[in-house]
């Protein structure tokens, strides 16, 4: 449990390189504690805040992001450029949750800002995760939707949206109506319950019924 900060950083790098983004969150959370409390100044804190905040946004954990943003000291928020942008992205995503604002602004901001080599791969993952999440949702909620609605949710330009969605997600497009027909998401394959399991359950229920009658 008590890993050194150096070891934690190493693990984080490794997770980043192998694409295991879910592992980043606990690692950076522990690093935040250790660098704040024990190994102070071993790295500038924004080296931890930036990947941590990005990871929260990738996981769409806006609660933890909110908590983190409140903790970050004000000077750091303005001084560290990448952090400043990430906080703006967080605010925009929060607004988006509340159904105001435009997702396109988020994509624009992510695309136009400068990211150092350490953070750039995570930012690419973030962009994809926002877009994928939206498209999954659209496919779940809509049997048909206007092109411009879909276009406003993705980072692609409107004239290529239809093509891209047809190619990558198997959606259908009807140019005459301007409507996209999403491909319905696959129902998750749940294993049906076997007879033996049912048998056990039936035993328990019968037992309960006997108890109830006798009391």
């Amino acid at each position, binding site marked *: 449990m008590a890993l050194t900060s150096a070891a934690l950083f190493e693990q984080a790098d490794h997770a980043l390189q192998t694409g295991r983004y879910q592992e980043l969150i606990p690692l950076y959370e522990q690093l935040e504690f250790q660098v704040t409390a024990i190994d102070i100044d071993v790295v500038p804190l924004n080296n931890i805040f930036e990947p941590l905040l990005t990871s929260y946004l990738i996981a769409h954990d806006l609660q933890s992001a909110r908590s983190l943003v409140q903790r970050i000291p004000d000077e750091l928020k303005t001084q560290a450029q990448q952090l400043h942008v990430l906080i703006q992205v967080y605010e925009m995503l929060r607004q988006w949750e509340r159904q105001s604002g435009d997702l396109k602004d988020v994509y624009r901001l992510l695309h136009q800002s400068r990211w150092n080599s350490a953070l750039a791969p995570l930012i690419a993952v973030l962009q994809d995760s926002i877009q994928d999440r939206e498209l999954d949702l659209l496919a779940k909620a809509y049997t*048909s939707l*206007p092109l411009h609605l879909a276009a406003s949710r993705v980072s692609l330009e409107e004239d290529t949206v239809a093509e891209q969605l047809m190619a990558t997600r198997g959606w259908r497009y009807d140019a005459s109506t301007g409507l996209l027909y999403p491909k319905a998401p696959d129902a998750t394959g749940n294993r049906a319950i076997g007879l033996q399991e049912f048998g056990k359950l039936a035993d328990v229920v019968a037992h309960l019924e006997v108890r109830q009658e006798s009391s």
Partner: protein
Amino acid sequence: MSSNDHSYDEIIAKIVACSTDLTAVTKTLGPYLNNLNENIFLARAHGQSDPIDALSPEHHSFAYLYFLLYRCKASHGFHPALMEKVWAFVNTCDGEQVRHASEKALSFAEALVKTATESQQPIIAIRPLAIFIQRLQATPGQLTILHPLLAKTCLLAQACKDILPILDNDISDVDPKLTHVNYRDFLLYHYYGGMVYAYQKNFERAVEFFRLAVSAPAEVASAIQIEAYKKMVLTNLLQNGRRAVKSHCQPYSEFASSYEKKANSAASIRSDLDKIKGILVRDRNYGLAKQCVEAFHRRKIQDLTRTYLTLSVEDIATNIGLGSDPEAAKHVEGIIVKMIQAGTIFATISHEHAGGMVSFLDDPNHHDNTITMDMINTQIQKATEITAKFVKMDQTISSMPQFFNKGQQGGSFMPERGFSLEDSDYGMQMGYEAYPDEATSSNPKRQRIKASQRKRDAQAREDEPEEPEEQ
């Protein structure tokens, strides 16, 4: 000075010698350390190494705690070197030893929180404390005097992740003699805990926690219970759309009543909210109440699924009282999409007709799969464990002298069904002596004699180990 060094050697030697068994720790070491001057724990041996380094946080946890406690108390602002020791300590300390120093443990926790607050970095205290509590607990469901402190600190810092694993373990073990918890600790923990869950938007657990605070037995409701009640009303509205309990806290009650009336429109709920805005802000419940208003829209939409198979977005907007302009329609469509995402409604939207048509669907989950099975099995297991605990508690209470005294005075104290619990629930054997029903004896004098004889019998039984009866 050499005489000081000598006394440190003495102290260390004593600590090492006594730390080998718990009786020595509590009977000898405790009083010894309590008699030492506080400064002993702060000072370093002259020119040489820190006496604390001669101790192991794992093996000499009891004494180590004293050192850390006084050092944290004395430090103004935090010192990384001290924090490093604190971190190592909470991760390796011997729970048994620190359990016997629970008041010192609380002082340590308070000093830690104070340090963190003074340096405006609450997370310094939160993570170590969460780990420390889990080591302090004899069982995951045991309430310690540190619980309310951690909950409050997390709330103030708005950093609630670390306490969630602790909150998720329902309190099932409250032992004031061992842990020195009191009634107020129980109330505060569940009040703050409810607020943590509400902050995380887990309203189901929030309601549970507030309810536990509110329903704790009391002759006069404490201020904590009243505040918990107010929050319970609002979180219950959020979770269940209904009022929890009637009466008390008039403005909240009225808001809840009108919320419950399905016929009310979103606009009227909004105006009800504005009417009591002042009170809500004063009680710091305005945020919760606003969430209730948003949830109201969702409830009204859910109600529509009972009546309609399809409905246009525009009609839905009008129906729930948000108006019929395009902005309202867009807003409503957004709400519906979010509800689909969250799984609180099963529906699809089609734009083949201008404006959008919503088709309400049946629950595609037929509950005939292993996920449901696993859920049922887990619940059964939980219920079995709780039943076992109950029977144990029942046995303990029933053999307590106070219980018999009540029986003597009352006579009709026993409920008709007696106290025999059906054993062999789920295949477990739980022996239990059924209580003879006092009410069957019509002679009061004989009743009393019987009662005192039973009391003597019970005392005798208490002294022997109880064996479960097979039935």
